[in-house]
């Protein structure tokens, strides 16, 4: 089993699913993205299901690896991954039936930063996402602090389930937050994610109130979600706060989702334009459709 990161020692360690050195779509400029492992929502349209759960070291993925990058260590029987051999083919993740990945690693913030050091001249900052990065708050805060000290301010991409009002250090260490609001309707949110959206709405209000919300997003999946209601509800709160926050409306795309959800259609331009009009009508200036 993965040791509890907080209990280990004074250095906060976290379970990192993967590190992507360059991204155009995770905040302003070019940013490195750090994916943390583990999520408390179970979105039906999840695009990274392999980041949801902790690896239980069942070993089923090991024979699936064509590059022999996976092995089971003698003794406690932990599955280990050899990055030098890995070709990134994805067969292990496809073989895992537990929404996990054998490539997640327990890391210290300094290790994450040293993995990024050669890309430093290319980056505006980092974005920490998941999974749900708010589930590892000590590690997240430490990573944000060390990254900022290294000249790379950090954005937090979150589902909003954490109680950020109770995490002032983390909020201070972050350059800003990008929050997903998946559904405004409580029942719809439960149906989509398995949990209530009350914490999400509370995070939306709190992050707005402290001026730390950089961006709010809603994924638009016709037939699955009432996007009009969600966009209307979010826009009203953001507009009332008077803060300049970008609202990004994201077309559902089937790439990477679980097999059962690959047939959900991608919304057309007219649908997206009418949703953007709702947000602009509420008074938001920075509305982006992707």
């Amino acid at each position, binding site marked *: 089993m993965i040791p509890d990161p907080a209990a280990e020692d004074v250095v906060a360690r976290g379970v990192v699913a993967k590190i992507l*050195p*360059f*991204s*155009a*779509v995770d905040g*302003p*400029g*070019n940013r490195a993205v750090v994916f943390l492992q583990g999520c408390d929502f179970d979105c039906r349209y999840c695009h990274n299901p392999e980041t949801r759960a902790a690896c239980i070291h069942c070993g089923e993925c090991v024979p699936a690896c064509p590059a022999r990058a996976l092995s089971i260590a003698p003794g406690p029987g932990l599955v280990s991954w050899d990055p030098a051999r890995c070709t990134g083919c994805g067969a292990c993740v496809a073989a895992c039936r537990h929404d996990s990945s054998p490539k997640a690693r327990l890391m210290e913030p300094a290790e994450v930063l040293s993995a990024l050091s*050669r*890309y430093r*001249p*290319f*980056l*505006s900052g980092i974005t920490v996402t998941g999974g749900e990065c708010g589930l590892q708050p000590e590690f997240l805060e430490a990573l944000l602090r060390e990254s900022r000290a290294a000249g790379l301010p950090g954005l937090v991409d979150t589902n909003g389930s954490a109680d950020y009002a109770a995490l002032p250090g983390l909020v201070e260490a972050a350059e800003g937050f990008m929050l997903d609001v998946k559904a405004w309707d409580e029942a719809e949110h439960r149906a989509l994610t398995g949990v209530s959206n009350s914490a999400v709405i509370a995070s939306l209000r709190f992050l707005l109130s402290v001026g730390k919300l950089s961006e709010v997003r809603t994924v638009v999946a016709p037939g699955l979600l009432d996007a009009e209601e969600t966009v209307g509800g979010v826009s009203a709160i953001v507009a009332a706060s008077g803060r300049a926050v970008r609202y990004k409306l994201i077309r559902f795309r089937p790439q990477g989702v679980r097999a059962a959800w690959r047939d959900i259609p991608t919304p057309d331009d007219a649908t997206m334009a009418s949703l953007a009009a709702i947000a602009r009508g509420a008074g938001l200036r920075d509305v*982006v459709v*992707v």
Partner: protein
Amino acid sequence: MSPALAVITDRTLTYQQKVAGLARVGESTESPLRIGPELRRYIDAGAICDLYEGSAPYRPRYIVPDYERFMSRGSAFLGLEPPRDIWEATAALLVLYRHVPSITTFPVYLGDIDALLQPFVADEAEARKAIGLFLLSIDRTINDSFCHADIGPDATAAGRLILELTREQKNAVPNLSLKYEAGRTPDDFAALAASVALEVAKPSFANHAMFGREFRDMGLGDYAIASCYNGLPKGGGSCTLVRLNLAKAAPLAAGLADFSSRVLPDVVARQLEYMDERVRFLVAESGFFESSFLVKEGLVRADRFSAMFGIVGLAECVNAFSGGARFGKSDEADALGLEIIERIAALVAAHRTPLLAANGGAYLLHAQVGIDDDRGVSPGCRIPIGEEPDLPEHILRSAPFHRFFPSGIGDVFAFEPTAKANPRHLLDIAKGALASGLRYFSAYAADADVVRITGYLVKRSEIERLGRGEQSLQDTTALGRNAVNNLGVLERRIRS
């Protein structure tokens, strides 16, 4: 059919293209160059190639006029006074362009056009109209994409107008470079350049600090980017460009040891001999430097002309000796590539021609982008299309080669159209690339009509027109079409 008649009856050539084609046929009837049998063997094997430069050079291949001098003094030969307003300035430049020769018959360098026009920007709306017509005239009358204008490193109103009009007009000509220097070029100006690049495949980012330092150190002072991405002394140029095709030289060796001890030094020596001979004819016999008004009026100076030693196909050469390891992927293969380039650089630096004063008579290294009928030969030191690693890896593996090539080397990256929503992403990558030692960085979005072929720009819609048997205004469209077919340039890895 005779070569001349083939040109005359070709339905896809415009009148201008036929005139240029017939000039080439005419030049080929003379063979005044002394080419020995050893050199001839390498030429026949394709290992040494003069890139269709002609058998009797009668003008330097690349001419880089001192347009600043022209703007301040006018031209007695052309009967032009120094311009006094934006209309006179743009008209004067267009007149002079008509009289700047080069290998393509069109000028390959149009000047640092933002700095040239900025003193005449009084009323913004009027300047927009004048510069818009200026850029339009360039595209419609200079019908060749090896025509290059520079902007930067400082932000100016003229520079902004040039970028905005470039985005509006979406023309292939001129090719455009932003001379970028960290700490000097403002972010908002560079971000505008990045957003325009994602729409029109230009400008590219030129490493101003690197070029500036090297040209100072060589005693050449100010430089310009001309043609594809060629760094050349301003007020001078390059007499010739001959290239060493390493992909074709490798098979002439019995193995790596034979290549480095025998073939490489010999082929480099023969290429230097060929360049010397081309320079000799141009300088001592053609009469160019005694007769051109550009020389007489000091717009170019003979002592600011060098010549370019080109190389191409490093990747294929390295792969031939690496037993399965691939250039751009394996550290050992890349190290061998660097060793070969270091070797060539040392051999070229040790050679001096008494005929050229610039850089003490030593030639400038150039990573040549290839010609349209190359097959299986990667440009310069580039990683082959189809084998490109992840973007960060690609840049970091390419960077160590760039410092050897003051007269030009560059890498081209294709981006997802979604990158247009975040031009600062591209700017960050360009900045990082230059900070990591890249000399020249080009990008375009995968859905743009204007695409960068190897170093020059072509419109896909024009390639299609040619495909239908119709004429295309730009002579480079045909080169682009062949490069698309032979080099797969539209198959570049797309970065998201």
